[in-house]
């Protein structure tokens, strides 16, 4: 009997965590920071604190497999996303309208054999990944949306 109680408790925990995750809103790349509530929810993530930096704000989320940081401009537009963890987050909700361009660029990027890193450079969006098993890293950004005084190096 004691063992059977675990399943309902686990299920309850899942429902609570999904409900908590749905509250905050962080946007996809190129979209207003407050406009999309579905992003955090789509990643089943929990929201962490926002951090104001010189010229931009960092919003941090935690999924089961990674920490995701979204970088927004003073105008409230997300210009970059970075991640670190045991797995890459699902980029579908994070790349937003840039997903199609990224996928097309990825299909044309030959496999970099013998390497732990990859750069996928599209007309508008850049996706980079590096690291190794248990330390998977990467970022995506739109160069044209970088606020003045902010460089791609800040997105990590």
């Amino acid at each position, binding site marked *: 009997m004691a063992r059977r109680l675990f399943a309902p408790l686990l299920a309850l925990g899942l429902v609570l965590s999904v409900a908590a995750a749905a509250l905050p809103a962080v946007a996809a790349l190129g979209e207003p920071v407050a406009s999309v509530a579905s992003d955090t929810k789509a990643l089943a993530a929990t929201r962490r604190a926002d951090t104001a930096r010189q010229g931009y704000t960092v919003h941090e989320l935690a999924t089961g497999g990674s920490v995701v940081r979204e970088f927004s401009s003073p105008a409230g537009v997300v210009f970059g996303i970075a991640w670190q963890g*045991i*797995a890459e987050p*699902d980029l579908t909700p994070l790349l937003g309208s840039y997903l199609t361009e990224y996928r097309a660029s990825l299909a044309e990027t030959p*496999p*970099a054999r013998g390497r732990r890193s990859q750069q996928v450079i599209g007309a508008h969006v850049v996706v980079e990944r590096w690291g190794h*098993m248990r*330390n998977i*890293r990467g970022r995506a950004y739109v160069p044209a949306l970088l606020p003045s005084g902010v460089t791609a190096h800040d*997105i990590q």
Partner: protein
Amino acid sequence: MTSSRFLVAPALALLVLGCPGGGGSGGGTATFSISGTVSGAVAANVLVSLSGKETSSATTNSAGAFSFTGLPSGSYTLRPTLSGYTFTPPSASVAVNGASQSGVDFTSSVGPPANVVPITVNGSLCSSSAYMNEPCVAVTICSPTTGACQTIDGILLDTGSVGLRVFAQLLTVPLTPIASGTGQLAECLQFGSFTDWGPVETASVVLGGEPAASMPIQVIESTYASPPSACASAITDPTTAGFNGILGVNFFAQDCGVDCASTVGNGVYYACTTSGTAACSEVAAPLANQVPNPVGLLATDNNGVIVQLPVVPPQGLLSASGTLLLGIGTRSNNVPSGVTKYSVDQFGGFETQLGGVQYPGSFLDTGSNGFFFAAPDPSQLPACTCPTGIPPSECADYTGWFCPASTLSLTATNIAATGSPSGPVSFSIANFLALSSSLNVFPDVGGPDPSASDGFDWGLPFYFGLDVYFGLEGTTSSLGTGPYVAY
């Protein structure tokens, strides 16, 4: 109590030898025997394992004879093993069809110690689609159900990952799926330059001359079930990959570890149903079901590995040969000597410093074919420009490498994750475009990582002329407790 237990043990031993495991020999069904002899460099005390319709094992007597009795008709595979010896043929297939079979003979010869796994960098153990500075080994995979075995070469030796993975196209022996949720276990992994998708299945794995060990491995199969979006563009085939599989043998015991055992949405492990089109769902995977470091599952020589590769001259070589030694200080051939141990952090990293820059997430990786890092001074280490006449789609083969005006000699410092010890590492970066296009193995090659990368990727050239140790987590050797690297 003591005396009665003592009596039971010999009785059990007789049962095991006389009656194949799995039972089924009673009830009036006719049974038969398989017998043979081992001769040559050694005859006595050779372990002969039987698999197929029934599973059993027997040890040869002083004359080299062995026999299995009580076998129903069916197909069987026999495989002799003894540490330090090799056998011809390595295994024998025997069909029992209403009659006993005798004369299943093997010849023994003195072989390398069981913990020796040969490596070739390019060369004979690599596939025809190998790339520059690729270290290859061969691994034998056996079916847990039929006992049939196959040896697959062209397996990338990778100290940057954990676990054995083999392309589905190459597997000819049936493996056993692992149940998870309402389906079967699969996983999606990022290897930086590619993603890897496929089911996790149980296999019996033979490394070097070690006895087979049962463990989960990944079957690389991009079309398996309905992959999650992160693995929608997973690597498809050995020719594209440049290898037939991956043998990951760094210092961790499983590919993911406790994070994937405790968290459902870990992004690595999935449960899939192979009928219908339902998407695979994220699952937590118990440590025992995760893809393990195969070395940790060995009966002996299971506390780590040593990678030994020769010095390679600056002008390069066509190929090179080396050795993967299983175990650290477990035999006369793997006793640590003249090396310094560096502990690693929970992500497998230590710190490198170069040119005033700190790289806290640094690692020693045979699966990388050069020194890869964000250069402290890009003007000193510019990326190559794409030669004229090269189509844009192939430019990354050139712009991904450093092209200094002349060969640049550098000295970095490696620092253990605990802060000490530390020690210098000298290396060189040559102009990539000046290398011979007819050779495959080069010591002085490197390329730029994304500028945000805070890790120094010490790829295969780091290993040339060194013995590099990987101490497995949770085990000890005279060097200390894993996880650690030493060189």
